[in-house]
């Protein structure tokens, strides 16, 4: 049994109304426990809508979404599912509730009614896991974007989440902030086996994933390892996406007549291919 599984999932906003809008159609997806997957797609391709199904923030108009075997439509399980799947959104400012870091991280555990000692322990452990312990008494207003996103991640970890769903967590950050978030996410995935679903517009970030799903025009159009996905530069461009810089360079070199047989997704690959 997969950890997250969507079967023929379709979502229509404002169904039956004048401004009805199909956002996601017939998506079938399986994400295994401990896996790191990236979802790519242009704005409006439906990737955020899809992600909001994973913890029952949105319910499928047809088809279903199962998390750890529980149907998200089953109201009895709503909070069990949300405990297991923590979400991090794009705008760091609009997801921090409290005016002090540690209070914010404690918000989730308070909601699910843990006892005060346990909350305190979880908050400390979560802040340590994202390397933000020294900021626990800070006001979020005085943190950088990358630090705020790490606080948001800690907020999920403090509920003992098994899975993180991150919706363009680095879109509003500078390079330093992006690295902080990427490093944190990939470390949590490797060291703690946290299942990770990472939505992004940055191809270098997607290249870290075990598997990539590509969304285009409300459909899931491709899935595979980064190497498989980034091999087909033409298809990616046609979908309004890009490939990592190294892959693009390899492609251009090939067009100039250089023979490169390996698939290339990062600098090391390219160096190996050219300087062997």
């Amino acid at each position, binding site marked *: 049994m997969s950890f997250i599984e969507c079967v023929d999932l379709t979502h229509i906003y404002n169904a039956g109304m004048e401004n009805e809008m199909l956002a996601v159609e017939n998506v079938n997806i399986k994400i295994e426990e401990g896996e790191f997957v990236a979802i790519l797609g242009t704005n409006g391709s439906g990737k955020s809508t899809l992600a909001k199904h994973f913890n029952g923030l949105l319910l499928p108009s047809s088809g279903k979404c199962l998390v750890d075997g529980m149907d998200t439509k089953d109201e009895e399980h709503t909070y069990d599912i*949300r405990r297991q799947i923590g979400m991090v959104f794009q705008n760091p400012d609009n*997801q921090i509730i*409290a005016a002090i870091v540690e*209070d914010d991280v404690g918000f989730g555990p308070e909601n699910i009614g*843990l006892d005060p000692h346990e909350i305190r322990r979880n908050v400390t452990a979560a802040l340590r896991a994202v390397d933000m312990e020294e900021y626990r008494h800070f006001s979020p207003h005085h943190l950088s974007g990358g630090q705020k996103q790490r606080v948001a991640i800690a907020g999920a970890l403090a509920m003992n989440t098994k899975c993180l769903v991150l919706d363009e967590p680095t879109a509003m950050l500078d390079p330093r902030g992006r690295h902080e978030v990427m490093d944190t996410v990939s470390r949590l995935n490797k060291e703690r086996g946290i299942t990770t679903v990472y939505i992004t517009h940055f191809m270098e970030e997607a290249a870290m994933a075990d598997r990539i799903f590509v969304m285009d025009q409300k459909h899931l159009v491709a899935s595979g390892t980064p190497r498989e996905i980034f091999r087909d530069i033409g298809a990616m461009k046609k979908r309004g996406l890009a490939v990592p810089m190294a892959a693009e360079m390899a492609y251009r070199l090939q067009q100039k007549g250089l023979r490169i047989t390996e698939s290339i997704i990062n600098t090391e690959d390219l160096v190996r291919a050219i300087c062997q």
Partner: protein
Amino acid sequence: MLTDITLGQYFPGNSPIHNMDARVKIVLLFIYIVAVFLFDNHINYGIMTAGAIGVVLLSGLPLGMILKSIKPLWWIILFSFGIHLFSTPGEPIFKLWNFVMTKEGIIQGFIISLRLVLMIAISSLLMFTTSPLKLTDALESLMSPLKKIGFPAHELAMMMTIAMRFIPTLLEETDKIIKAQQSRGSDIGDGNFFQRAKGMIPVLVPLFISAFRRADELAIAMEARCYQGGVDRTRMKQQRLHNVDFWAGGIFGVFLISLILVQFTL
């Protein structure tokens, strides 16, 4: 600049005032304000002012900061001073057209201003030394007896928490929008009242839209973190009284008794 406003800002610290339980602080503040308006003995004004200064010194915050918090309300103080100056009957010392300024008026005006200043200063000290979350938790806990009659104590406290969290964010945003519209050649803050009001539209519309968008995203984020109202909710920081609170209560008791003694014996 808008972000210069200090209202509603918390300055973390480790003074006895910071460490007091917020519920105790609110209750003592309440009694103090009542006392300020109840006791009208001149010696008592001295004691109460001394008390206020003492508490500020104890908090370790610069006195200037407290004075700065009074600044936005300065005109209210002046206004009430002016009214008392001219409307109190007594020994006239100055006459202008129909207005008579009296000696009693000066004293009365001064007293009223002092009362307002003390009230604002002590209230802002509460805001400066208490984290917003503790403050709202305390209010929720003090209001919780009212829950029985259907009073939404939790919801109110949550609203206040979020409002306080977003005050700096929204101030910053307002500043940004004003600058963006000024860059498009708009003269915000110029002209007569109507021109000014009209000039605010390019700022207010984006600000409201942004506030709604933030509210929407925040609601989703809260939902994702299992928020379901006040039901079955626990607290990381439990409110418990410590030594400092008993000391504060004791000292305040002595303070109050001396005020009463002065009021009724001298």
